[in-house]
């Protein structure tokens, strides 16, 4: 032991809390990546574009989404009356593709990207521990789901406040609620949207354990996302629809009812939990038994 003490004055009695160092490092590393920042930047730009488009469209006084312009995302007609609706509109516009694509990129890169760069072997001999590393990666992906959703929501709130009036709002059920409660509902909706993304996060992580190429894992995950969205549109596959991870995504709108309609919301959360359990276990089984040759 004499030698171990020459370098470090403090005796090494590992504390369980030190294990969290990896999570902190992982979060810092993920959010310092140029790619992560670019994804968040794109997500922040969507509400700006939607807000400006609605402002220009309604400059002559006609209501947005009305007339012959076809259907826009949910809630778009109310945006001119209340800027807070831009939050709901932006989330409804980004949830089908932009948000899950960003999550698919981060989740798909989680293990495969480290393998591709060769850093995986050094993390494992550090030793990070395979289960601990996988849990850290999943936790970080979940944090990214929340961060990405909040970026869209906050950007929309800022743009909405700048371009449109704020105030009391009317729910889908026709009742009126105060602005403060409206903000509360917006936060709840953001959380529901973030939770909707945990299924594809688990799926992406599983794909990430299958390959040593980060790009391949990202492309596969995003490809699966598109495939599932298409399958969800085919009426003949009706029996399959309740099991597709994206099927209940737009249920977050039910939080704008009075009283809130919980049926589809809980079905969505249950389905996401199921995906997380199934693909999380599959990722664990694969990753802990895998030969690391990269």
């Amino acid at each position, binding site marked *: 032991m004499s030698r171990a003490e020459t370098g470090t004055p403090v005796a090494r009695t590992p504390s369980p809390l030190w294990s969290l160092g*990896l999570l902190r*490092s992982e979060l810092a590393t993920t959010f310092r990546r140029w790619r992560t920042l670019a994804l968040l930047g794109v997500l922040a730009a969507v509400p700006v574009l939607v807000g400006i488009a609605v402002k220009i469209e309604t400059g002559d006084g006609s209501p947005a989404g009305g007339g012959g312009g076809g259907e826009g995302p949910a809630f778009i007609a109310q945006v001119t009356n209340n800027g807070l609706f831009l939050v709901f509109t932006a989330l409804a516009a980004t949830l089908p593709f932009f948000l899950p694509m960003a999550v698919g990129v981060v989740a798909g890169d989680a293990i495969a990207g480290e393998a591709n760069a060769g850093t995986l072997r050094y993390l494992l001999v550090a030793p990070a*521990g395979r289960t601990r590393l996988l849990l850290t990666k999943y936790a970080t992906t979940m944090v990214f789901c929340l961060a990405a959703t909040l970026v869209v929501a906050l950007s929309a709130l800022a743009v909405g406040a700048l371009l449109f009036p704020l105030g009391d709002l009317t729910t889908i059920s026709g009742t009126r609620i105060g602005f403060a409660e409206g903000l509360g509902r917006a936060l709840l909706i953001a959380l529901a949207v973030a939770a909707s993304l945990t299924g594809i996060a688990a799926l992406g992580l599983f794909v990430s354990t299958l390959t040593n190429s980060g790009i391949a894992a990202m492309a596969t995950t995003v490809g699966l996302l598109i495939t599932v969205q298409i399958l969800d549109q085919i009426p003949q596959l009706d029996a399959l629809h309740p099991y597709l991870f994206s099927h209940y995504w737009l249920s977050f709108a039910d939080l704008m009812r009075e009283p809130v309609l919980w049926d589809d919301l809980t079905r969505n959360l249950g389905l996401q939990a199921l995906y997380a359990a199934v693909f999380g276990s599959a990722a664990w089984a694969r990753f802990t038994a895998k030969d690391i040759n990269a």
Partner: protein
Amino acid sequence: MSEPPATAPDGDDAADGVIVTRALTKRYRGGQLAVDALDLTVPAGSVFGFLGPNGSGKTTTIRMLMGLIEPTSGTARVLGRPMPRGARAVLPRVGALIEGPALYGFLSGRDNLLRYDAADPTADPRTRRHRVAAALDRVGLTAAAGKKAKAYSLGMKQRLGLAAALLQPRKLLVLDEPTNGLDPQGMREIRTLVRELADDGTTVFVSSHLLDEIEQVCTHAAVMAQGRLITQGTVTDLAAGLRGRLVVTTPDTGDAARVLKENGVTDVVVAGDRVRGDAPEGELADLTAALVKAGVRVRGFGIERASLEDAFMALTGEGFDVAG
């Protein structure tokens, strides 16, 4: 396979060797036998050279020792514990450089080390910055610590990889081809570093396909070819198994070769102005006298020291650079 208790003092759990493998075998999917029944023993305190041409199974062995890949059969014990099962207890006391450095290009050199240190659950976060600074200093990277790793040269990356292996006091250091990409000055520094670490009591396991760099620092060596262990032992023993070769430098190579053969020298080979052969037992001076008497002009006369390369050639019957 009884495991020693976790509280065993550091020195005792590896009494029979810091690395011990028995019949260690790895067969990849597709049937290729990468490592074939390897019995390796690395004594504590040694600087152990692990030699073999590219593709001879060195890296596969190292990956099995580090718990990165599962052996097909056989056992591997590192610091007295079985791998890969004992990885959590063993690896914090092992520093490793495996198949070249791997870094996060968008992070600075210092941040790379902070990340690798954070991955070790036994590393104290209170001393992290201090230990990272010390490791950077030890490999001479303090001045470049703030630069992004993607701007590093290959040699700097190699140094940073070494620094990652030196973040903690280690019992065992595994260095896979540590001098790749380094200039002669860098190679010299690595050799000095290895000697320092060995003097501190760290066992150093160095793999290489370059023989001369090993010969200069190692106390022990093992030679691999095509997945099999050809030999292992102390460097002195390995080289002593070979007699030196007689070398005569002369402009009259034809006459010299004839005279040497007449005087009992076997396996005479002429190359350029040199004549080489296996000298017979007895006084070498008699050979010089015979050469002079025959009118052969001699520029040089001596015994070439047997090198590990000769040992390898003698053992495998092929050149060292042949890939397996």
